[in-house]
């Protein structure tokens, strides 16, 4: 695999191998030097570029889209080098071409900020900054060290810069980093200087005097540590990445399946007679465009999950499985679905809430119970709570949701009030969250009552609690009352 560079030659785009690009850039630089400056030179160069573009077009086939170094070499052979130009044309431009040659060799272009990993201690951030501002990177290293000791703010700054600054990988980027024009001479020069990090440090070490050696020793040690760490990281990273990819794929796959099945169930059951907390689901879904709600909800959950799945599989297969266009389309659909889903939810939530709260079976009701002549209460069932109020003026009442009250049978036998849970008739419908809640019978203490509870029914006696808190003397009375209750 080789990197290609896209260029614009006379308004036509070409993909060049990196080496071919370097050769071509150097060649055109040389030709420009030969032609000198001015409008005429620009015209000649445009003509030459035009002709080169025409020739390069012919060397592209459907099977060979990239211009190779060999293509450029043969092209230059046809067009002639700058030396050929000098020899064959000579003339008006030759006098000033020598002066320009000197200028061009150290011609400076605008520097670009890259990480200089060839001269790195850790990530090449300081070396890159040094290149950019054209000062000794030691300056930045000292600043970073000082910042570490002064509160440690250097650490996040360094990491941020490490991420933000791209590494100067190609020869072209390295020249950009040093602010050199990409001439042939510059490329040759670059090839001559050491490329390996260790070699660079070795060279520097040899150059330093004793004082310099002492200063650069810690840098070299840190560099060694980081090189070792990077080696370990490089060895472990593929394993971590693969594991991450597998876990991500599995989780997102399961989640995607769950979302799909869930949505399908919701759609299929949205018009059925199934119940949700005693409300038939169809009554709720009739209020809202449920299909749209489910569809947009599905999309806004499923698309990011699908993207995660694609990401996971891409990591495992070491190949990007989605291109920019389809990714953008998916994200576009996702955003639209999300907006619609939120809008639907906000629009219809009050109606559903209203329906739910005012559904007649779910409304809290309170029925007054006639206690005239009742001396004994018998409660049967764990959903029944009997509450003995301290306030004697409290009227006796039975309260709870309508559905819960319907579940309780109340009858009078002589002076006895009997409360009992009905045995629920099983309906054919499946009901979600249809648990009955307990009901409350409130009676006042004034009526001397005998209360009998069975199979889980419970009694809360407010009078007992109050009396216990109040005076010790009355304790006797309360215990006697308790005895009555437990009989």
């Amino acid at each position, binding site marked *: 695999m080789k990197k290609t560079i896209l260029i614009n030659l006379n308004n036509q785009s070409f993909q060049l191998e990196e080496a071919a690009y370097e050769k071509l850039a150097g060649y055109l630089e040389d030709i420009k030097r030969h032609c000198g400056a001015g409008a005429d030179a620009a*015209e000649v160069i445009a*003509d030459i570029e035009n*002709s080169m573009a*025409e020739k390069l077009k012919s060397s592209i086939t459907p099977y060979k889209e990239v211009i190779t170094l060999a293509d450029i070499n043969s092209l230059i052979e046809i067009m002639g080098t700058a030396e050929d130009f000098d*020899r064959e044309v000579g003339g008006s431009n030759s006098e000033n071409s020598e002066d320009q040659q000197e200028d061009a060799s150290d011609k400076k272009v605008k520097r670009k900020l890259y990480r200089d990993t060839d001269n790195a201690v850790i990530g090449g951030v300081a070396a890159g900054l040094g290149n950019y501002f054209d000062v000794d990177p030691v300056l930045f290293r000292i600043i970073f060290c000082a910042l570490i000791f002064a509160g440690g703010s250097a650490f996040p700054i360094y990491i941020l810069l490490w991420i933000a600054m791209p590494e100067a990988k190609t020869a072209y980027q390295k020249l950009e980093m040093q602010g050199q024009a990409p001439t042939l001479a510059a490329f040759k020069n670059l090839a001559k200087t050491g490329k390996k990090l260790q070699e660079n440090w070795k060279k520097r070490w040899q150059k330093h005097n004793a004082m310099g050696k002492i200063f650069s020793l810690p840098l070299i040690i840190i560099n060694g540590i980081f090189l070792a760490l990077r080696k370990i990281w490089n060895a472990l990273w593929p394993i971590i990445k693969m594991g991450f990819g597998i876990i991500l794929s599995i989780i997102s796959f399961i989640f995607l399946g769950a979302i799909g099945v869930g949505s399908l169930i919701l759609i299929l059951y949205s018009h059925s007679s199934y119940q949700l907390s005693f409300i038939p689901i169809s009554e709720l879904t009739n209020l809202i465009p449920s299909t749209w709600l489910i569809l947009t909800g599905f999309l806004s959950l499923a698309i990011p999950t699908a993207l995660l799945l694609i990401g996971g599989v891409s990591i495992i297969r070491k190949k990007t499985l989605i291109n920019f266009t389809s990714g953008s389309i998916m994200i576009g659909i996702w955003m639209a679905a999300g907006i619609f889903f939120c809008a639907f939810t906000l629009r219809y939530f009050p109606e559903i809430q209203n329906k739910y709260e005012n559904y007649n079976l779910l409304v809290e009701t309170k029925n007054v119970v006639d206690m005239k002549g009742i001396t004994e209460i018998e409660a049967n069932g764990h959903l029944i709570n009997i509450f003995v109020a301290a306030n004697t003026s409290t009227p006796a009442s039975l309260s709870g949701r309508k559905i819960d009250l319907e579940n309780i049978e109340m009858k009078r036998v002589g002076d006895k009030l009997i409360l009992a849970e009905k045995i629920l008739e099983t309906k054919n419908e499946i009901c979600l969250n249809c648990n009955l809640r307990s009901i409350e019978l409130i009676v006042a203490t004034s009526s001397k009552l005998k209360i009998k509870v069975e199979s889980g029914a419970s009694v809360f006696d407010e009078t007992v609690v109050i009396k216990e808190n109040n005076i010790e003397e009355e304790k006797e009375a309360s215990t006697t009352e308790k005895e009555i209750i437990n009989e």
Partner: protein
Amino acid sequence: MEDKFKKSLENAAAQMRKGVLEFAILLVIAKKKTYANNIISQMKDAKLTVVEGTVYPLLSRLKNAELLDYTWKESKSGPPRKYYTLTKKGQQFLAGCEEQWQNLEKAISNLKK
């Protein structure tokens, strides 16, 4: 030694070509107005060794000397091309060149006898 000889011969040939290159270009354009790539291929057909890139600076120079003029013309394949024509001055210049060339040819053949 061999190398040096070869080089000096090459140099002599280049010097000679340099002298006639402008003449050759004018000759081609005089026949019919045409564009750079066609000029090059005609010169190649005539077995005149030519370094393609050098034609462009020469055309520019001739144009600056007002011996040539050009117009842009659409091409069927690719970007528009410059079609060169001779100016009046160019025709006079060409006539002068032809006369000089005949003189040269005569002189050389006389010397060869």
